[in-house]
């Protein structure tokens, strides 16, 4: 991918984030937008793991949980500023990924899936059971970041919804920029070579285990930061954030939109975040529709929405 396409993708994303608010009829849309961006950020991490390196994880919500609870517990137990707690969470997630990544990533396919799933369940179980520390299944409140108050003192009054829309939007852009840079870097190429065939990659001198581990650690940090942002934005967090269903949701977003594409994954995040909001009138049928959408997209657009459509458009153009 040449540099021009990278900047086009980033520009499209930035323009969308900046322009959409002009069409927002109420503050609620900022909330939905912010959620899409946070989900998009964690899903971009999975693009690196699944799309670039070809490894599956059904336990990445575990890292989101670590990020989220770092922001809840850091200020409460260690007196950390929530912003620093976000960084601490990312560091812990990265180190943990490094530690467990090596043995876990030796596994392949479904065995990797069940191992990562086990990891995610262990994290969510810890958060649920250590009630004295984490507040247990009922959740725990998260201290405000304090940035909004700072802006107010500087004379810029914005609502919580607007603030988090902007903050998550910027985080998403930065995350997308980093991921797109990685794609074209030597490391990114090495990672992507695994996707085709690990044996082939290793015969051309790529340290397969090392590249897998890199992708795993990077994606863990993405999930952790996204979890932190969600916690800070909500002001309250429960162990659900680390749960199995959240892991599945993340993978689904990535695969639905197009797991090889940063923009596609963001689209996937947008669709799955919007779907329950659009379907409220048919709430009873929400699960039916969601399940049908997942099946149909995978059958008819196996590369995911965005890449499949892009390919079709390009095919017609040429």
């Amino acid at each position, binding site marked *: 991918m040449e540099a021009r396409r990278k900047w086009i993708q980033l520009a*499209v994303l930035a323009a*969308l984030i900046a322009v*959409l608010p002009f*069409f927002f*009829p*109420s*503050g*609620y*849309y900022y*909330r*939905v937008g912010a*959620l899409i961006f946070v989900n998009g950020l964690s899903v971009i991490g999975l693009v690196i793991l699944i799309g670039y390196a070809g490894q599956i994880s059904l336990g990445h919500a575990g890292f989101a949980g670590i990020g989220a609870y770092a922001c809840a517990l850091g200020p409460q137990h260690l007196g950390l500023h929530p912003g620093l707690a976000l960084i601490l969470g990312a560091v812990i997630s990265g180190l943990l990924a490094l530690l467990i990544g090596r043995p876990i990533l030796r596994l392949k396919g479904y065995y990797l899936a069940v191992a990562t799933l086990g990891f995610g369940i262990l994290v969510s179980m810890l958060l*649920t*059971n250590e*009630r004295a520390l984490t507040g*247990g*299944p*009922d*959740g725990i*409140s998260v201290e405000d970041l304090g940035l909004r108050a700072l802006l107010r003192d500087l004379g810029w009054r914005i609502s*919580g*919804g607007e603030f988090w829309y902007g903050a998550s939007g910027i985080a998403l852009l930065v995350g997308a920029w980093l991921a797109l840079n990685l794609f074209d870097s030597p490391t990114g190429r090495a990672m992507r070579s695994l996707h085709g065939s690990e044996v082939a990659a290793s015969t051309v001198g790529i340290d397969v285990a090392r590249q897998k581990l890199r992708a795993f650690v990077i994606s863990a940090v993405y999930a952790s930061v996204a979890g932190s942002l*969600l916690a800070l934005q*909500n*002001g*309250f*967090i*429960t162990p*659900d*954030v680390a749960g199995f269903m959240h892991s599945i949701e993340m993978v689904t977003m990535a695969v639905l939109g197009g797991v090889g594409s940063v*923009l596609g994954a*963001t*689209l996937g995040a*947008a*669709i799955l975040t*919007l779907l*329950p*909001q*659009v379907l*409220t*009138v048919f*709430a009873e049928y*929400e*699960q039916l529709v969601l399940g049908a959408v997942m099946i149909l997209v995978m059958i008819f657009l196996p590369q995911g929405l*965005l890449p499949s*459509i*892009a390919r079709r458009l390009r095919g017609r153009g040429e």
Partner: protein
Amino acid sequence: MMKTMTSTALASLVALGALSGAAQAEIRLGASVSASGPAAFLGDPEAKTIEMMIEEINAAGGVNGEEIALTLYDDGGDPNKARTFATRLVEDDEVVAIIGGSTTGTTMSILDVAEDEGIPFISLAGAISIVDPVREYVFKTPHTDRMACQKIFTDMQAQGIASIGMISGTDGFGASMQAQCKEVAGEFGIEILADETYGPQDADMTPQLTRIRDTDGVQAVLNPGFGQGPAIVTRNVAQLGFEIPLYQSHGVASNAFVELAGLDAAEGVRLPGTALLIGDLLAEDDPQYKVVNDYIAAYQAKYDQEPSTFAGYAHDAVALMVDAITRAGSTDPAAIRDAIEATSGLVGTTGIYTFSPEDHLGLDLSAFRMLEITGEGWKQLD
């Protein structure tokens, strides 16, 4: 591409918003309950109750001559979704008050939005932390799990029970009540000798119960939890041939529980319940007689099921809200809030509510009735 997708989605959202806001002269009431997902057990009957009551009220001419326009969302028990729906109710649907929050987690998410925006919110969840410390705009209808513990321990004390074993679900309901019971047990001179847990989807609890059985001096077993867990615990207790009494929580106070556990196993189980459970046993001069039996009859006629205790919480929340809006004589959220706080002696299915600036729960222990399951049905013990 993404833009068109998003704007199509946004356009449909706008259209929906416009649809719900079309009629004038109406009272916009919002609700977010967990009608699906792991807490559907709570939220499904709650949603049914809210919809049924608003229909009834509108059919009878509404409140102060205005119809109630209900916007009800299903948050699936997910606190994150609950917060989004709360934001939507307040910012987009422009409701004047909110009912909902089937679980403590979803309640805590809605509560933030309600407090920030100054919208009165009546929660349907149990935890004491919802109303302690008191928050200006937040009220709740269920008794706290602490009160359930106190009611149970009072009965144990009367039975001369001084040391017990606990087995609790690890879901929010079970874990919260477990913690509260451990906190207040000392006040009743009750010692907890064994403290076991089980997962919400577990199929067999005999190992935990065997541990309790083999603990010296245990005089009774207490099982805080809801869903299938308590039914399986009850069956396992019978299987293991326990000779000490089993106490369940208000989480399973329903006839469905007796059916699931089987009468053979459930006979002799004691639990704190509400008047809703024993509508047919209430004396006709009981203040709750009419409210309870009217509600049961209406619910059964519409849904062909019995309303659960949780459904009763939703009934009381709607009743409180409608009463407050009537008295406030306006749809100003602050005025409704003041009217809720001034509620006095409102008879609900759960109990009789009297709020004050210091008390946003408005129930005392008398709302609970200690019940025992017998071959002839429920028996009130106090």
